């Protein structure tokens, strides 16, 4: 009997969804907006992550080595820094490479190139570019360097550390990243709550139209689950249809917007992102739709079934 009841509930839910065309259409439209908001939150999150990741990549601390230092000393320092838990990578730029890069950067400036030739040697020292795992960790790397290789002091192989100059930028970036992440979470939660409330009210309205039917079902002695079931199925169907619509609509929308805004966000093209993460997006949008639709129906019908 249970299987028969489940079959009947699904059949009735499908039939109600199709026959209550206008109500279903309005519920689907509201849910399309809801799911679009959820999709935008996902895309915004991806853009924010990508942007912050790129900004992090661009931050490092350059340690300039004195020209008198021998390579073994530099490599020892490099190994020590690499062993610090805060450090993600250390890039060694030898004096020769530094000179080469310098010449490359100033290849248009003949005066500088001529001056370098006159010096008859390499005036540049080697450098270590240190990248921390998180921007907040640069300070502890600086402390390590200060304690072991105080910059500019006699006997130290470090000439300068540009941390102080970058410190302000790093701290600012740190604040932006933290604020961005917190803001992202708050906005996501707010939008999801807001969209669920809007959907809930639309479905409540749809349910209000059916309140006489619910009363009749009660009067013929239908069990609560038998009354509720078809409404939950119809709610889930609102979710299925609207999620499929959103997944289809996102294709042209991201195709149009993606290239236009990619330059603003370190070349992240939303269209490519959508295609690459389609499986994940499908699961999130599809199941969010089903959940929001069925949950809203559940809440909405509950108030009509309070009485015996």
């Amino acid at each position, binding site marked *: 009997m249970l299987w028969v009841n489940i079959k009947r509930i699904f059949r009735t839910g499908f039939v109600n969804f199709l026959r209550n065309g206008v109500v279903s259409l309005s519920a689907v439209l509201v849910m399309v907006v809801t799911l679009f908001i959820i999709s935008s939150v996902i895309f915004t999150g991806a853009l924010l992550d990508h942007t912050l990741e790129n900004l992090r990549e661009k931050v490092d601390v350059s340690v300039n080595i004195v020209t008198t230092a021998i390579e073994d000393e530099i490599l020892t320092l490099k190994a020590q820094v690499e062993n610090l838990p805060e450090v993600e990578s250390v890039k060694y730029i030898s004096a020769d490479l530094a000179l080469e890069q310098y010449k490359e950067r100033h290849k248009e400036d003949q005066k500088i190139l001529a001056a370098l030739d006159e010096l008859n040697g390499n005036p540049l020292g080697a450098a270590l570019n240190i990248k921390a795992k998180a921007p907040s960790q640069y300070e502890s790397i600086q402390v390590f360097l200060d304690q072991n290789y105080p910059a500019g002091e006699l006997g130290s192989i470090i000439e300068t550390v540009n941390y102080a100059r970058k410190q302000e930028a790093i701290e600012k970036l740190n604040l932006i990243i933290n604020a961005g992440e917190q803001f992202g979470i708050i906005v996501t939660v707010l939008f999801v709550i807001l969209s669920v409330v809007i959907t809930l009210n639309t479905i409540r309205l749809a349910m209000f139209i059916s309140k*006489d*039917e619910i009363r*009749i*079902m*009660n*009067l*013929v*002695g239908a069990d609560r689950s*038998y009354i509720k079931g078809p409404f939950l199925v119809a709610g889930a169907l609102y979710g299925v249809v609207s999620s499929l619509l959103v997944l289809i609509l996102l294709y042209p929308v991201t195709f149009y917007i993606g290239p236009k805004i990619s330059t603003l966000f370190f070349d992240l093209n939303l269209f490519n992102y959508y295609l690459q993460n389609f499986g994940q997006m499908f699961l999130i949008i599809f199941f969010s739709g089903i959940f929001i639709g069925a949950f809203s129906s559940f809440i909405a019908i509950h108030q009509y079934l309070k009485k*015996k």
Partner: protein
Amino acid sequence: MIYFDKVTKIYDDETKALEDISLKVEPNEFISIVGHSGAGKTTLIKMLLVEESPSEGKVFYGSSDIHDMGRSDVNKLRRKIGTIFQDFRLLSHKNVYENIAFAMEAAGKTDEEIESDVPYVLELVGLFDKAYSFPSELSGGEKQRVAIARAIVNQPDVIVADEPTGNLDPANTYEIIQIFKKIHELGTTVILTTHNKGVIDELGKRVITMEDGKIVRDDPTGRYEK
């Protein structure tokens, strides 16, 4: 079979809808409850259907106090009582066949039982050819016959009809009353509320007259005296 024991109903706004009602309905009786609007007829029916609870007193079905029942027992009770209303109360998004089948599904009947019984009751109320029409496509008399078909399809012990002819013309009223008589002859208890004098005189059965929430007359082979 049904016993109202000193039932009083006072609504939140202090309106007294029923006052000290005691009433016994025996199996296979045909009872008409008459009275003006506001006399308490519908409240009495709602008490029996557990749509309203008494402020004082009890309502028994067999030996059970129906307002003391759990939700699941109330559902079982409602499946034993077929209900018919003045406004038909059909499910507007279901066709005639589905409206009747729904009552059977709610009672846990199998698909085979539904497939055999629904056409049978449709034949009984003369609506076999309207099986796939929706309520909006039917006349008032046809809607009421669908409601009757829905009420009798589970072979209930009791049929409760609240002003079933209130929205019908004399010809349809006559037809509906003939159907009720037929149902009663087949062994079902019928409780009918009405203020249609012609209906009462045509039936010639027990008549209970209500006024201001009280039973003022209980006549075993009564007539409607205004």
